[in-house]
């Protein structure tokens, strides 16, 4: 087990040692090491993307009482291969009126931040590709680049649906970035660092021998996790926040004029971005690579990390299967009037928790501090529409 825990790192080191003994110079080896890490991370996430694209369809199908893809290969697992071939062989259409350069660049610009943010996630014990002191800051700063890409795509397509979709995307992403970052700051504040590794380390250990110290187990952490989760859904343009693509009203939003491999790149970037934000969610609130129970620590840490990421991704599919899409004004009202105050409440609650000594009493105090704003805001938000107020007349 210990061996498995170290396996990815040891494998890389052994490979480099072999190369070193073959006379490859030291500087070359350092570059090779970096390339190996980058290649592995990108490879793993591309694999996850392929798996996700088929699993998402299968899970959605099961929720909807269908089978889902099951023809290509065993259990339909080769479906991504078939999809990939289809996408690659499709004609790449560019509208005549489009801004061709920007139209071409948009998928590239979309892909770059999605891959860059993967650098700072701690995948396992001592397994961070780049150990940044301000990793969280880097994550959000770079991640914001996707907005530019989506707007580029919408604008360059020179299509009314695309522009509408892009406008919606900008409004939505900017609004949701704020609660997203504030709820992330909550975790950083308690851990006392912006470095993802430190935040994960702060969630280690078990209370009473079995309760993990994950932030999500505290009231403020739970609230912040929920807010972060909602923000993450909006940031990765997933249902119920898939307004930019809203297929019933906007055809496909900013993707309307994309086809073939450019479309596939967008799709891939969106999924990798989604995994990255799931990884950040796991790091901030679900204890990163920490095992959930003491006796499970024998399982390698990176398995825990990816297991949790897959679980979070599964819940995102579940959300997608359940909820209808929001309307654009509700969406913004929800972000500014509910999520933002709630994230401040979570912030305050975290501070209370910290200064009240982090014990059971602090737990209840922080519950009260987030609970009251939740009820007040939630009721004021839902009071405009209610089921019970509607009654119906019946005539015999």
């Amino acid at each position, binding site marked *: 087990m210990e061996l498995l825990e170290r396996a990815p790192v040891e494998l890389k080191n052994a490979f480099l040692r072999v190369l070193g003994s073959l006379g490859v110079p030291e500087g070359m080896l350092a570059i090779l090491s970096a390339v190996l890490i980058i290649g592995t991370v990108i490879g793993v996430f591309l694999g996850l993307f392929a798996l996700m694209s088929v699993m998402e369809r299968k899970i959605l199908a099961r929720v909807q*009482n269908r089978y889902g893809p099951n023809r290509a290969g065993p259990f339909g697992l080769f479906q991504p291969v078939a999809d990939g071939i289809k996408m690659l062989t499709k004609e790449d259409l560019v509208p005549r009126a489009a801004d061709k350069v920007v139209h071409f660049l948009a998928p590239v610009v979309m892909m770059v931040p999605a891959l860059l943010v993967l650098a700072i996630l701690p995948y396992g014990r001592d397994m961070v590709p780049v150990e940044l002191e301000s990793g969280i800051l880097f994550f959000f700063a770079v991640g914001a680049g996707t907005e530019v890409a989506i707007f580029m795509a919408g604008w360059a397509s020179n299509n009314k649906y695309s522009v509408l979709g892009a406008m919606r995307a900008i409004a939505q992403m900017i609004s949701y970035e704020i609660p997203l970052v504030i709820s992330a700051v909550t975790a950083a504040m308690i851990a006392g660092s912006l470095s993802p590794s430190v935040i994960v380390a702060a969630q280690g250990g078990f209370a009473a021998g079995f309760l993990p110290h994950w932030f999500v187990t505290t009231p403020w952490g739970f609230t912040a996790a929920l807010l972060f989760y909602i923000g993450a859904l909006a940031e990765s343009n997933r249902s119920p926040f898939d307004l930019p693509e809203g297929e019933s009203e906007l055809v496909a939003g900013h993707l309307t004029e994309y086809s073939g491999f450019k479309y596939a790149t967008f799709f891939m970037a969106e999924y990798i971005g989604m995994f990255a934000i799931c990884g950040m969610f796991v790091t901030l609130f679900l204890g990163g690579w920490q095992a959930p129970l003491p006796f499970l620590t024998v399982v390698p840490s990176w398995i825990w990390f990816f297991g949790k990421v897959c679980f979070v991704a599964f819940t995102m599919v579940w959300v997608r299967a359940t909820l209808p899409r929001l309307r654009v004004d509700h969406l913004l009202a929800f972000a500014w009037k509910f999520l933002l105050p709630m994230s401040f409440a979570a912030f305050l609650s975290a501070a209370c928790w910290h200064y009240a000594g982090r014990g059971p009493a602090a737990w209840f105090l922080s519950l009260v501090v987030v609970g009251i704003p*939740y009820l007040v805001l939630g009721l004021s938000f839902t009071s405009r529409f209610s089921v019970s107020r509607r009654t119906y007349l019946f005539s015999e």
Partner: protein
Amino acid sequence: MNFPGIGLLKGFVVTARNFLGSYVEKDRLTTRQYPEERPKLPENSRSFPFLVFDGEDPEAGMRCVACKICEKECPPQCIYIIQDRDAAGKPLKRPRIFDIDISVCMSCQICVEVCPFESIRMDTDYELSSFDRFGSLVLDKSKLLKSNAYYHGIHPTEASETDARIEADRKKKEAAAAAKAEAARKATAEKAAKAAHPPEETK
């Protein structure tokens, strides 16, 4: 007043129950894996019309008499009939050409209802797709004619009813014919008797 968020949670419970239920309950996973698993069609099921023949030989046992009622009644007019004629040009009671264009046919079953000779019936075969857009979708007589046994195989109840009706008709006709023959025989016998034994009064 509802606790905010409770409605969403209820929805999540429903979808989760359907997700898990689709693995255990047959009722929650109703899809048929078509080419491997074929549906058992109900008896009344219908696709396109075909012509019934009795006995072994399609041409000899053909029930159709080319009365052209179905051609006239067919709402989208997909039936085309030309009556057969013998060498002398006298019309025969059977079609020379009987085509149904199933790309036009709308499976309404009206031809079946109006046919007075129980000759046209609905098939249940639904695997009719082909690469040939025009040729193979116009069914001619040789493709349309199917045996009464086949008809019994796809619509047992309806076929037995039809057979009973035909049988009753035949019996009635036979009885009528027999009665007619009997009457004729009696008449001739009487005549003969009259001829053989002239009435006594005339003596």
